[in-house]
């Protein structure tokens, strides 16, 4: 892509990534969540691929790194689901505790980040997964369509 695109992409990418992470972190109080934020973040990766080409992105970002990130996100998510197994699978055990355990007042309120119990943590786990998952789909498919015949596992 042209120099203009690359410069603008260089400039925008930080905002896109920050916004994606913000959407992930605030999923339990404002619109958004792990999937949406992950998709925003992955669209940043798409921008990088479009601007700089799949091969140069691939030099910095390998599939197996993304694969490890994805597996860890998935493992974190299922571990959080297992966290409540003493009661029931998926039981939100952190509500009422001191870690993300505040309970907001009933009805409209300004919002408190320390609420939601396991929900913000699950947002992070899903966010990791979606970033890695969509990122590796984008990377693999752009590598393949730009001439590579195979990718690493």
């Amino acid at each position, binding site marked *: 892509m042209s120099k203009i695109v690359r410069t603008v992409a260089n400039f925008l990418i930080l905002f896109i990534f920050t916004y994606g992470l913000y959407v992930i972190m605030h999923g339990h*109080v*404002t*619109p958004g969540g792990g*999937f949406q934020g992950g998709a925003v973040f992955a669209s940043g990766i798409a921008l990088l691929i479009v601007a700089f080409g799949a091969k140069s992105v691939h030099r910095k970002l390998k599939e197996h790194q993304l694969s490890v990130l994805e597996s860890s996100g998935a493992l974190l998510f299922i571990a959080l689901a297992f966290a409540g197994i003493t009661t029931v699978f998926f039981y939100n055990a952190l509500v009422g505790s001191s870690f993300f355990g505040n309970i*907001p007042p009933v*009805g*409209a*309120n*300004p*919002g408190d980040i320390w609420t939601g119990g396991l929900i913000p943590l699950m947002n992070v786990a899903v966010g990791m997964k*979606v970033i890695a998952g*969509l990122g590796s*789909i984008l990377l*693999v*498919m752009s590598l*393949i*369509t730009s001439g590579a015949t195979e990718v690493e596992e």
Partner: protein
Amino acid sequence: MIEGMTTYVPYLAVALLVGIAFYIIMVQKNLIKLVMGISVLASAANLFLITLGYRAEGVAPIYTNAPIDTFVLPVPQALTLTSIVIAVATLALMLSMVIRVYRHTGSIDSEQSRIMKG
């Protein structure tokens, strides 16, 4: 009748999208277009689900600084979110298989790339 039609416009849009999707799926021989047809069908399903949860005058069901307390239904939104991700995942897999078929047969025409018959 006209009034009735406007009340149901989102549903009618769903029906139209389903029709378009099935037309593409049945008529097109190009595998990429077939995948696009399925994508349209998935959009129709998503639109249908999200439509079911709309409540007149409602706002998004988020209590943070909510202006009023008429919320649209949250469950259809969650279902739609799930089904969007599923649609994306299947789309990616279908496209990569189409690329595979193309690599092997040199064609994305569903009649020419067909090996197995009978």
